[in-house]
Structure formats: structure tokens, C-alpha cells
């Protein structure tokens, strides 16, 4: 009845061979005991897992097979949570046993490099929350909503199955291998494992990918705030609030983080409520009514200033707010969905699932669904977080499964909840909000006519509903509010008002949702610009050593300006795009994110092969192959597809030809200038796709070569190089998962009896 195959066990014990201090209790639970605990299937345990499997099975049956008028949202919760539990209990343990093989007798970097600052042993549950707050942001709240165009089932399956087999595997492996290397970054690991060519390609790809990701996140904010005085005011207020918090923490009461966060949170709520009042006044409506181009420029200038200001003034305090909001919002969303249990009227597969000309996202289900939903299923960006910061804080090796794999499951759950919130609103409303203005015409009448003309089953929307919803959420219009954020906000407001406050509170909930998404994104934009600037400084520093000095202002400012100009150009391109912006750029975001995932998995593949684990290499190869196939196919179609809606160059050619023919308008571009803009944009987007895919293929190829070489070396009996830090015996113990097992409790009790001096002697340095 054991869930795992039998062999390979002896290797785990043989591999370590570290002499731990005999005067101390053992720093790891005895292998045999651990194994016995894992394999002991008491009747209670069998019943529990049978119940989880049964409930999950029923939930999947309700979602995938039963075709009623509506499906209740609670089935999404059961299907996802039960699948996560099974994936975590069984699949992640397979990975632990055969691939990572953690050894708690080895000290983690947080122990052997302890400095009280960057390397600090952190309680596993606290670190779980910390890691989750660092990986989860606006991404899982946007992609699933855009993909809801195809119906709920494709997205749901990909989010849940994808995370178990791909996303969480990537996060876990990257975290573990980075931990074994003293917390080295993905870029450093790529260089070590793949050599100069692979490493350099990985570095350039990462830099470009960060530019794209920051630009498109910024585009989501711009779309949510355009022509919305309320939103502009309340999101704008986060800047002075953060500055105040920064000054408070630096000069007034240093270190009182909780205190200042509560003050900040109260001010934030006041800013949301105040925004409603300001937007009602005539001057407020005029001053804060900004068009998208103005907001984009504002964001650009803001991005530059924020990235050169000291961290304590703006970034650190806003990060506190953002983290609290993140946890609060997710708990709130989960509670609301469980309490309200909205009925979902969206079909499992919509009319657009089998077509490639959908209005919200163009392209066929394969591969574009899989790139549109990146965060929540498989997100390469996480590899940058999972390497570096978190590994320096892990207390014991075995905890990485809980923090890395488990943390990603949690993000996936957020994506599922965002999907549920978005599909609980009227379908007609969904399309009116998410189709570009070029299609809807921008007014409630034209939008309603256009939506009804799509011939979607059960959809019959009136202009009245569109204006009524806009009025309810305190906006002038909700037509063509693309980018996902406003749709999620309407969905959340729709659910929350049934829970607390009724229709009168809808406007508050809507702007609350916009506020937290903007907060997450602004933090990501700031941090992304900073990280990218350092990467650029480091790269230029290879040629001009002066640039490596982080404190050299001209270099820092120049590199910041370059990075901001790069993402700013993409952002402005998206904002002014006559074709709609989000629908043309979002695939690029997903492709970039998944390519980064492919790069991270390729590095993991090479590492796993060098460790000699060939039999279970498929655990890494499977998600790598899938990510590679999806992104390369998507890039191929974006580059070579003859369908203008899909292929960048096909569109480019179509518009170029129209210009050459002397046409004054073409498709959705109504002026010659707009046509020229399309030609320019599609060329840039097309070439970006080319560069991404070429770089990624180089990285994957070098990883495959490294894998083959490792295999040959092993077959020929040659020693393979291992880039792990040398093993240091551990002098601490902590349980591995959320709930300690009996053996872990016993051992922890043994350690607790030890006088503190005995435990810590010899730790001095």
C-alpha cells in the first residue's frame, strides 16, 4: 500500500556520510524511522487519503463531465485542493526520494554561513509565508482571467495539473540546488553548469525577459487606471503613504515594522474611501481623469525615480504593505468563495476554445492557453526568487519540499480563485470588458451590439447592464477594460458584496481589488527594474570594470535609465497599439515567462544528470520538454503564422502592403499613423520573439549536451564535477513539514532539553 517504489533507498544513506557531533542529539531523524513512518498505512490514514481522492474525483467529475446549466464554484476549490494534497503527499515525495535526496545531517547555508543578516535560520512556517509572498503577485490574477475566453476547463486543468507536474517541481528543484550551492542565483548556476555560452545566453535571456515582464505588468496597471479618477487617486496615494512609512521607520521608530504597517494599512483604506469622494467632486474628476498615455509616462518617470531612490524610502515600506495586502486578499478571496459559493455560468469549453481568432487572446488553445496562464501553473520568474533569497534562510534541507513545492501549490490556488472570481460574472460583461476598444467601439451601445453579435450561447447583454455595472463599481465606463485586473475586480466585488455590504459596497471592493493589484505590480516593477539594473551593471562591468561598483552613481543611473527606457518603450507600444495592446503583448509575457522556466529546468536537468540520477531524469525532462514545446511552438506561430491575428510578421506584411497600396485605414487601424504604428510594433514584437526563442534554444541545447556528457562520464567511470558547497555537519534540528511527525517531535524534545551553550559552542567564528 506504500505510495512509493522500493529501490534507491540505500543511496540516500550512503551519499551523505558526514560525521555529526556525537555530543549532540542527531540533527536528522533516523532514515529507517523516517521511511517506516512514511510507509506505515494505518486504517485512519488510508481512510483519510481515500476520502481526499474520492472528493477530488467527484469534484473533477462535476467540473469536467457533468454538463449542467451552471457549476458551483466550490467544486473548483475541492478539485484543486484535493489534487494539490495528493501531488504534495505523493509526487513531491518521489522527487525528494529520487532526485533531491535531502540530508538533514548537512548544515544549510543559513547555518554554516550564518551572519544574522542575510543568512538566518528561519522557522519553516514563517519562511513558507515569506517565500509565498515573494513569488505570488499579480501574475496569477491576470493570466487565468484572459484565458477564461476559452471556457473554464482548459485553464483549470492546466493550472492544477501543470503546477503539480511542472511549476512546483521547478520551484522545488531550483530552491534545493541553490541551497546546496550556498544560495547562488540562477544565472550563476547556469554559468557553472552550462559553461560560458549557455550561461551567457541564459543571462541575456533573463534580462530581456525581465524587461518584457515588467512592461506588461505595467500595462495591466495602466489599463486599470486609465480614465479612472478614483483608481488614479487611491493608487497614487500609495506613494506618499509609503514615503511616510519609510521616514517613520528610518528616523522616528526604527524597527517597528508591525506598528507602521498597521498605520499604513489604515491610511491605505482611507485612500480607497477618499478616492471615491474625490472622484465625485468636479475638480477631482478633472485632475485625476488621465488618459492611458499620460499614466504610462507617469509610470515611466515613477519607475526611474523609485529605482534610484534608496530602498528604505519607498521600496521597503511598500513591500510591507504589499505583503500584508497579499495575505489579506487571499484569505478574503478564499473565505468569500467558500461562503458565497457563486454559480458559474461559463461553459467548460467556450465557442472560442476551438478557434484561433478570439477577441481577448488570439491563437489556438494549443499552445496559447499554456503561455497565457504562466503564473499559477509554471512560472519561470519564480526561479529567480527560489534561487538566491529563500535558500539563504532555510533551516533544514528537508524543509525545501514544503517551502518550494508547497509554496507554489499555494500560488496555484490563488490562480484558481482568480479564475473563479472572473468567471462568476456575466459572460457578456466579460467579453465587453476584455475585448479591445477597436472591437467594442468603446461605448455601452456599440459594445452590447458587438457582444450579442458574437453568437455566444446564453449571452444577451444590454447597454443598461454595462452602464449599471460601471456605476455600481464607481467607474465612468467598464467597456474594453482589458488586462484582467478590472475583470477580477468586478468579479471580486460581485462576490464580496454578497458576503459583506451589498451593492453599496461594490465600488469599495472594486477599488480595493484594483489597489492591491496595483500595489503588487508597482512593487514588482520597482524590484524588477533594480534587479535588471544590477544585472546590466554586472554585464557591462565585464568590459568596463567601473560599472561593477554598485555605489558608483553615474553607472547606476545610466543602467537604470536604460532598463526603464527598455520596458517603457514596450509599455508605450502596448498602450498606443491600435490592435489593443494586451491581446498582442500578453502572449509575449507568457512566452517569456515559460522560456525562463525552460531555462531553469534545463539547468536543473544538467545538475540532476551530473548527480548521476538518470533513471528519474524524466521528472525534470517532462516539464522541460513540455515548456520547450509550448514556447517554441508559440514563438514559431508568432513568427511564422500566416494568420495576421496570430503571426507578428504576417500582420506586419499585411499592414505594410496596405500602406504601400496607399490605403488610409486598414483593419482596426483608422489612420495612416496608426497603420505605421502597427508595422513598427509588430516588427519589434516579432524580433523579440525571435531573440527569445534563439537564446532559449541555445540554453536548452547546452543543458542537453551537459546531460549527455554527464551520462558518458558516468558510463566511462570518470568523475563528474560537482558545484555544491562542501558538506558541513549540522548542529541544529527542526521538523520538515507543516505538522511534525512523531519521530520529529521526539527528536525536537531531545534537542529542547539540551542547554543552549552546549548547542551553540563551536559555532563562533
Amino acid at each position, binding site marked *: 500500500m506504500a505510495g512509493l517504489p522500493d529501490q534507491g533507498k540505500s543511496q540516500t544513506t550512503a551519499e551523505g556520510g558526514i560525521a555529526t557531533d556525537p555530543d549532540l542529539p542527531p540533527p536528522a531523524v533516523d532514515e529507517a524511522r523516517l521511511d517506516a513512518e512514511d510507509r506505515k498505512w494505518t486504517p485512519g490514514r488510508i481512510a483519510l487519503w481515500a476520502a481526499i481522492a474520492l472528493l477530488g474525483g467527484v469534484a473533477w467529475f462535476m467540473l469536467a463531465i457533468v454538463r449542467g446549466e451552471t457549476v458551483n464554484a466550490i467544486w473548483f476549490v475541492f478539485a484543486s485542493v484535493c489534487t494539490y494534497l495528493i501531488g504534495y503527499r505523493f509526487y513531491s515525495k518521489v522527487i525528494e526520494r529520487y532526485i533531491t535526496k535531502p540530508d538533514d545531517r548537512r548544515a544549510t547555508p543559513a547555518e554554516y554561513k*550564518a*551572519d*544574522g*543578516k*542575510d543568512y*538566518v535560520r*528561519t*522557522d519553516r*512556517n*514563517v519562511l513558507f*509565508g*515569506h517565500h509565498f509572498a*515573494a*513569488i*505570488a*503577485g*499579480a*501574475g496569477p490574477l491576470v493570466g487565468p482571467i484572459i484565458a477564461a475566453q476559452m471556457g473554464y476547463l482548459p485553464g483549470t486543468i492546466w493550472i492544477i495539473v501543470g503546477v503539480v507536474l511542472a511549476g512546483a517541481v521547478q520551484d522545488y528543484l531550483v530552491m534545493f540546488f541553490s541551497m546546496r550551492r550556498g544560495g547562488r542565483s540562477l544565472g550563476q548556476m547556469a554559468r557553472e553548469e552550462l559553461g560560458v555560452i549557455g550561461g551567457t545566453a541564459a543571462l541575456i535571456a533573463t534580462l530581456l525577459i525581465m524587461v518584457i*515582464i515588467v512592461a506588461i505588468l505595467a500595462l495591466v496597471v495602466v489599463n486599470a487606471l486609465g480614465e479612472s479618477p478614483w483608481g488614479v487617486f487611491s493608487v497614487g496615494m500609495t506613494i506618499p503613504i509609503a514615503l511616510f512609512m519609510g521616514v517613520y*521607520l*528610518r528616523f522616528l521608530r*526604527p*524597527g517597528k*515594522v*508591525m506598528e507602521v*504597517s498597521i498605520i499604513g494599512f489604515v491610511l491605505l483604506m482611507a485612500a480607497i474611501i477618499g478616492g471615491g469622494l474625490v472622484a465625485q467632486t468636479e475638480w477631482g474628476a478633472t485632475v485625476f481623469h488621465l488618459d492611458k498615455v499620460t499614466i504610462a509616462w507617469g509610470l515611466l518617470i515613477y519607475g526611474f525615480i523609485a529605482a534610484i531612490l*534608496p*530602498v*528604505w524610502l519607498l*521600496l*521597503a515600506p511598500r*513591500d510591507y504593505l*504589499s*505583503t*500584508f495586502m497579499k*495575505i489579506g486578499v487571499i484569505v478574503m478571496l478564499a473565505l468569500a468563495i467558500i461562503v458565497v459559493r457563486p454559480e458559474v455560468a461559463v461553459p467548460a469549453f467556450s465557442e472560442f476554445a476551438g478557434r484561433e481568432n478570439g477577441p481577448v487572446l488570439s491563437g489556438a488553445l494549443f499552445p496559447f492557453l499554456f503561455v497565457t496562464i504562466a*503564473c499559477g501553473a509554471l*512560472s519561470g*520568474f*519564480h526561479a*529567480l*526568487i527560489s534561487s*538566491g*533569497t529563500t535558500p539563504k534562510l532555510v533551516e533544514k534541507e528537508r524543509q525545501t519540499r514544503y517551502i518550494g513545492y508547497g509554496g507554489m501549490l499555494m500560488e496555484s490556488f490563488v490562480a484558481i480563485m482568480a479564475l473563479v472570481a472572473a468567471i462568476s460574472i456575466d459572460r457578456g460583461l466579460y467579453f465587453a470588458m476584455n475585448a479591445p476598444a477597436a472591437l467594442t467601439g468603446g461605448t455601452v451601445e456599440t459594445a452590447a451590439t458587438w457582444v450579442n453579435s458574437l453568437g455566444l450561447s446564453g449571452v444577451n447583454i444590454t447597454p443598461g447592464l454595462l452602464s449599471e455595472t460601471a456605476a455600481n463599481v464607481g467607474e465612468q465606463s467598464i467597456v474594453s477594460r482589458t488586462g484582467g485586473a478590472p475583470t477580477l475586480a468586478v468579479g471580486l466585488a460581485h462576490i464580496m458584496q454578497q458576503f459583506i455590504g451589498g451593492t453599496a459596497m461594490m465600488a469599495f471592493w472594486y477599488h480595493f481589488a484594483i489597489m492591491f493589484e496595483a500595489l503588487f505590480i508597482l*512593487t*514588482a516593477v*520597482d*524590484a*524588477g527594474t*533594480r*534587479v535588471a*539594473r*544590477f544585472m546590466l551593471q554586472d554585464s557591462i562591468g565585464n568590459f568596463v570594470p567601473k560599472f561593477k561598483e*554598485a*555605489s558608483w552613481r553615474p553607472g547606476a543611473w545610466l543602467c537604470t535609465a536604460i532598463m526603464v527606457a527598455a520596458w517603457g518603450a514596450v509599455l508605450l507600444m502596448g498602450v498606443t497599439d491600435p490592435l489593443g495592446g494586451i491581446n498582442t503583448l500578453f502572449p509575449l509575457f507568457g512566452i517569456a*515567462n515559460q522560456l525562463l522556466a525552460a531555462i531553469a529546468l534545463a539547468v536543473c536537468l544538467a545538475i540532476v544528470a551530473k548527480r548521476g540520477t538518470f533513471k528519474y531524469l524524466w521528472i525534470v525532462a517532462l516539464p522541460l520538454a513540455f515548456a520547450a514545446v509550448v514556447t517554441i511552438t508559440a514563438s514559431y506561430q508568432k513568427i511564422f503564422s500566416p494568420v495576421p491575428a496570430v503571426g507578428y510578421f504576417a500582420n506586419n506584411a499585411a499592414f505594410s502592403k496596405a500602406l504601400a497600396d496607399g490605403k488610409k485605414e486598414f483593419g482596426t487601424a483608422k489612420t495612416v499613423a496608426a497603420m505605421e504604428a502597427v508595422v513598427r510594433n509588430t516588427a519589434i514584437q516579432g524580433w523579440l520573439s525571435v531573440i527569445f526563442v534563439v537564446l532559449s534554444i541555445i540554453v536548452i541545447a547546452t543543458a542537453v549536451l551537459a546531460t549527455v556528457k554527464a551520462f558518458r562520464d558516468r558510463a566511462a567511470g570518470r568523475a563528474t564535477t560537482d558545484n555544491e558547497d562542501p558538506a558541513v555537519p549540522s548542529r541544529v534540528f527542526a521538523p520538515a513539514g507543516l505538522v511534525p511527525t512523531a519521530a520529529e517531535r521526539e527528536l525536537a524534545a531531545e534537542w529542547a532539553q539540551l542547554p543552549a551553550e552546549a548547542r*551553540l559552542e563551536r*559555532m*563562533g*567564528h
Partner: protein
Amino acid sequence: MGAGIALVANGFRGFARYLGGIVGADAYAKYLEHHKAAGHGEAPLTEREFWRDRTDRQDSNPQGRCC
């Protein structure tokens, strides 16, 4: 009744401590603990110095935030 309130208060304090841990509000306490354990000769940084140092080091060592 009193026990119930104490229980709720305790739970709330625990939750607040947990949240504080996530954002890193306890960083100074952990630093002091490390300093003591490591047996350094010199006096530890004061709270103000520690937080200054912490954010200033982040300036040259940025941490990513995800999407």
C-alpha cells in the same frame, strides 16, 4: 470566560508574530540572538544602526519580487 479571552489573545499574538516573521519584523531580534551565539567580542549594532544597515545593504543587493 477569562481563560477564553486569554486563549484568543494568545492566538492573536501568535498570529501577529507570524505575520511579523513573514515581513521580517523580527530581524533585529534574530540578529541579536546570532550575535550572542557567535560570541563576538564587540558590541552589537543598535536597533537604529541595524535597520539602517539592513535597508542600505538592500540598495546594493536587490531582491526580486515576482509577478
